[in-house]
């Protein structure tokens, strides 16, 4: 058990120009917390995790585990266990040997190793397979062995790099729940890397969003969803993504086609003080809805309807300043509009909007 801290830690790959794979990452993870690192491909998630593991150099700043600076400590001295995306099971060892290997290296006695391995195997439902080689296991079983190898060590921090990406969709959902439950039970600090925002939202106590090596925001899943710190986080979190449009400002609010969204006085003052003529206006698909002909709304031409059973997502375009802009709207699954139809779309609630600075992308508090 230990807390973890990135203290302005950077990883810079030499080159011209140098690649700042992780750029001054500042992040504190509490003891026992489940933190998810999420971001698009190439955003530096794996690099950040490997820096913590000691597999990657830290070029600037420091890494602390349990309050101690471990920046220059080799991996074996950090008391961490890692689950790799490829699982990295030793192919010539049986499942039991794989799980007990670290203990064997530490000189733990044979009966002790056996007892610990048996305990972990029981937890992960692997008892039947202890004498098999990894080659003779299914993907999901291998994944559990990799987890078991980490658990047996009883480390102070678990590191996981996309451990579910090789599983099929159904197994992934199941394993996701199992990992979260296991972590709760063991109470071990866990850093979990994924590019799947659903995994991030469902598993973590807190989620850190990375982009191009820069930390965008780190908060609880709910807070990320409700108050994204910038347009990138707003678009990245949630599926389907938030509708984000840069629209002109009027005296009273933001102008979208036939729909003028009134903004509070304080917000307008703030925008005015910054000298902005436009704002990036964001609204989630579920905050939009179909409205009657007389009500405030925009004319949306339906281009695609995605029926998911209970709900349907309508993809369509609205003309804003004579440019077609795409919008996604969630509607009742029982009465979806037809393709090519023009429907009137309005806001469910005027408070369910997000405004961002069109140049910097930063959130404008309302």
């Amino acid at each position: 058990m230990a807390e973890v801290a990135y203290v302005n830690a950077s990883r810079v790959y030499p080159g011209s120009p140098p690649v700042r794979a992780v750029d001054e990452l500042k992040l504190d993870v509490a003891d026992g917390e489940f933190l998810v690192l999420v971001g698009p491909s190439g955003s530096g998630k794996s690099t950040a995790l490997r820096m913590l593991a000691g597999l990657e150099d830290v070029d600037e700043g420091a890494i602390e585990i349990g309050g101690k600076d471990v920046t220059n400590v080799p991996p074996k001295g950090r008391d961490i266990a890692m689950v790799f995306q490829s699982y990295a099971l030793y192919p010539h060892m049986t499942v039991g040997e794989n799980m007990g290997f670290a203990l064997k290296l530490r000189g733990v006695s044979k009966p002790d190793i056996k007892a610990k391995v048996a305990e972990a195997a029981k937890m992960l439902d692997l008892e039947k397979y202890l004498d098999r080689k990894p080659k003779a296991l299914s993907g999901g079983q291998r994944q559990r062995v990799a987890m078991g190898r980490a658990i047996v060590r009883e480390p102070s921090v678990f590191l996981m790099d996309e451990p579910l990406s090789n599983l099929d969709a159904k197994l992934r959902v199941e394993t996701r729940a199992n990992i979260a439950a296991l972590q709760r039970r063991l109470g071990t600090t866990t850093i979990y890397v994924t590019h799947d925002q659903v995994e991030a939202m469902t598993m973590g106590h807190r989620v850190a969003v990375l982009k191009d090596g820069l930390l965008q925001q780190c908060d609880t899943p709910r807070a990320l969803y409700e108050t994204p710190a910038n347009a990138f986080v707003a678009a990245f979190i949630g599926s389907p993504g938030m509708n984000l449009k840069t629209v002109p400002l009027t005296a009273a609010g933001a102008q979208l086609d036939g729909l003028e969204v009134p903004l509070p006085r304080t917000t307008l003052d703030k925008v005015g003080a910054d000298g902005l003529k436009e704002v990036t206006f964001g609204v989630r698909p579920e905050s939009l809805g179909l409205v009657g002909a007389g009500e405030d709304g925009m004319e949306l031409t339906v281009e695609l309807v995605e029926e998911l059973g209970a709900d349907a997502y309508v993809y369509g375009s609205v003309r804003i300043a004579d440019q077609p802009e795409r919008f996604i709207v969630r509607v009742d699954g029982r009465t979806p509009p037809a393709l090519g139809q023009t429907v009137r779309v309005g806001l469910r609630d005027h408070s369910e909007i997000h405004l961002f600075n069109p140049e910097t992308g930063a959130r404008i508090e309302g």
Partner: protein
Amino acid sequence: MRGFFSRHWYAYAMVLPAVIVTGVLVVLPLLQGAYYSFTNINESNIANPVLDRPASYEFTGLDNYANVLSGDASYGSFWDILLRTLIWTFACVGLHFVIGLALALLLNRPMRGRGVYRVLLILPWAVPAFISAFAWKYMFNAQYGIINQVLRALGLPDPVWLGQSDLALIAVILVNVWLGVPFMMMTLLGGLQSISGSLYEAAEIDGATPWQKFRNVTMPGLRSVSSTVILLGTIWTFNMFAVVYLITGINPNTRLLITYAFERFFNGASRDYAIASTYGVLILSVLLVFASVYRRALRRQGEVW
């Protein structure tokens, strides 16, 4: 059965040429050699169309085998030669493997000029064997060879390398090691590169020292490659004729099974084809026994092969 052929005739037609060529070039001579080993054929009783002389050799049953396996000196002291051949084979293959592995490990780590070193180290293999053999023969020359010149300059004794002593065997082993290391190095390097880097990282996190990583990741990862090259290397070295013959000629101190068969066939008062064939069959038998024992040992270790 008819259906099988009518369905697969095309495949059979395609492999037929290869089967015929292999049959003519490999199986027929093999059967003929095996047959000769049961006769007393030699230069004076073989059919000679020039002298218009018909064949007059006779079937002698297992006499040749009895004579050779008795270890009698007039039949080449079979057991002594076998022992020398085994020493030669295991010394060469052992050194090939150890040196090849060491070089492969060095070349597998990131460093500047790695490509250049790889090319330089593969060169001995690219040079035709007889050219290297002659070059080494001159270097081993007792009088003018560079090896003895260096030894003299250092004030060390300068022995006659390729004379009638066991030094000659050591000399040919050295040359054969020099010739064979590149192949081992390249195959093992290929094997090393096929080991996933994440296994090393996992071992590192599990707390393994460099030696433990070598023992638990590198060696198991190389097992299928190394078991294959060791088997191949053993067969090649056991039957290595060119290097030994080109460097030391006919020399009782470097006599191996294969060179003795050659000697018996082409030299001596009466060219003794029967005994040469007997040696040939015995060499084949030794290698077959070795290969099957080796395979069984591997299978017991759980290697699927």
